[in-house]
């Protein structure tokens, strides 16, 4: 092996990322997937499941939206992480003994924070300035 030879091939990805860097979100806005997760969390909470794991959320969203497909891994867990960073969710790893006794991998359990509950309720509420409803299904959208 040559001493001091460059062992790595650096690839500058800055130029490829320019397009991504220009994408900015409004600070308080929530993406549809984030709203769907909060809504799913609220529904699970109403059913007495204060803590929920990722797959339960994906399944709940599928049932809520009557979607045939479950939310993709990448989309779901990135959105859960963003919600956690914005303090709308909290998470913890479950007790290893529970997972061990049920002979399955440990779950990461998420909980809606007070801010998260408020955001989910606000999102579920129909807009106050809305015109009298002509289409009964519109509020759910």
């Amino acid at each position, binding site marked *: 092996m*040559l001493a001091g030879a460059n062992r790595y*091939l*650096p690839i500058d990805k800055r130029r490829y990322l320019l397009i991504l860097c220009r994408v900015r979100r409004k600070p308080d806005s929530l993406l549809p997937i984030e709203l769907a997760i909060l809504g799913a969390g609220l529904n699970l909470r109403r059913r007495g499941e204060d803590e929920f794991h990722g797959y339960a959320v994906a399944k709940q969203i599928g049932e809520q939206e009557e979607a045939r497909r479950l*939310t993709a*891994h*990448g989309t779901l867990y*990135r959105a859960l992480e963003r919600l956690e960073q914005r303090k709308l969710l909290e998470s913890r790893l479950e007790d290893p003994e529970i997972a061990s006794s049920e002979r399955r991998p440990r779950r990461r359990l998420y909980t809606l924070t007070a801010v998260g509950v408020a955001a989910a309720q606000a999102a579920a509420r129909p807009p106050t300035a809305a015109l009298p409803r002509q289409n009964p299904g519109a509020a759910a959208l």
Partner: protein
Amino acid sequence: MTAISPTRGTVASDIARAWLRLYTVGLPAGVRERRAQELESDLWEHESDRFAGGTAASMVGIEILGRMVRGMPADLLWRFHLEGPQMDIKIPFERMTGLLLLSLVILIPIATSINGYDTGREGWGNELSRLGDNPEWQRNLTIAFQVLCGVALVGAGAGFSLALRGRSRNLATFAAFALATAGVLTLVASAVYAMVSEMATEYLAGRGGDNALITSRTLAVGMDRLAESALVLLATGVYLLAFAAARHALVPSWLRWVAVLSAVLLAASVIADMGAADGAAWGLLGGALVALLLWLLVAGVSLLLGYRGPAVPRHALAAETA
């Protein structure tokens, strides 16, 4: 260690795990572990939920693959955002070269594969009918493979030039040129094959007659020559790479003798061919190819697994310490 109840464990789950390992490679252990834990739990819940509902394993696999593929853009964006635009992606030189060598193990047989038809004047009509009898999808698949292989060889040439330029600039340039030219010849051969295939269809339909026979045979002979030239260029490229690898002790030292053996057998094959000893020429050519592929395979795996040069003898270490 926790004993986890096995679900049926679809192949799709393994693919999803492999994808996770790929897009999190090089990240801090904590970040990787969290991603892995989330995915592991999700896959387990998904499989056990669906299997409990009586869903077939194949359907569950498709669902998992679908979720993985649809989430890929989000995974990649997450990775880019995590690293920030200032960070460079670092590809270890040895791994890249190893992967390129292993890719040649697949590409060389495709590029040099003989078309399988006897181009002798006597029985060419039967050979052309045999080609025309092959289903169209099969012929299209052969062309697609050859085109893919040609493009990949050009890419491999560029890759070697990039990977080795810091060590043996001249050798890397010559090797890259040889591989890329072989790639171009493979592309030309695929175009010629497409023409012969079309003529075979026409010939079977009773159109073209003798003209189709003569033209298609000429093209088939040309295709054989193209495959031979591609083989010589590929072999030259690999021998140059072997020389560079031996010079910088990038692969086990005994491998140089495998490359030398391959070169000697190839030269002997050419001489035997000129002496009209067809049987011997084919045998020698086969031996040369096997040795060549063996070199590529062992060198590729060694580099991929991080070969770190020859072991230093103990007495030398002791002398150094003293």
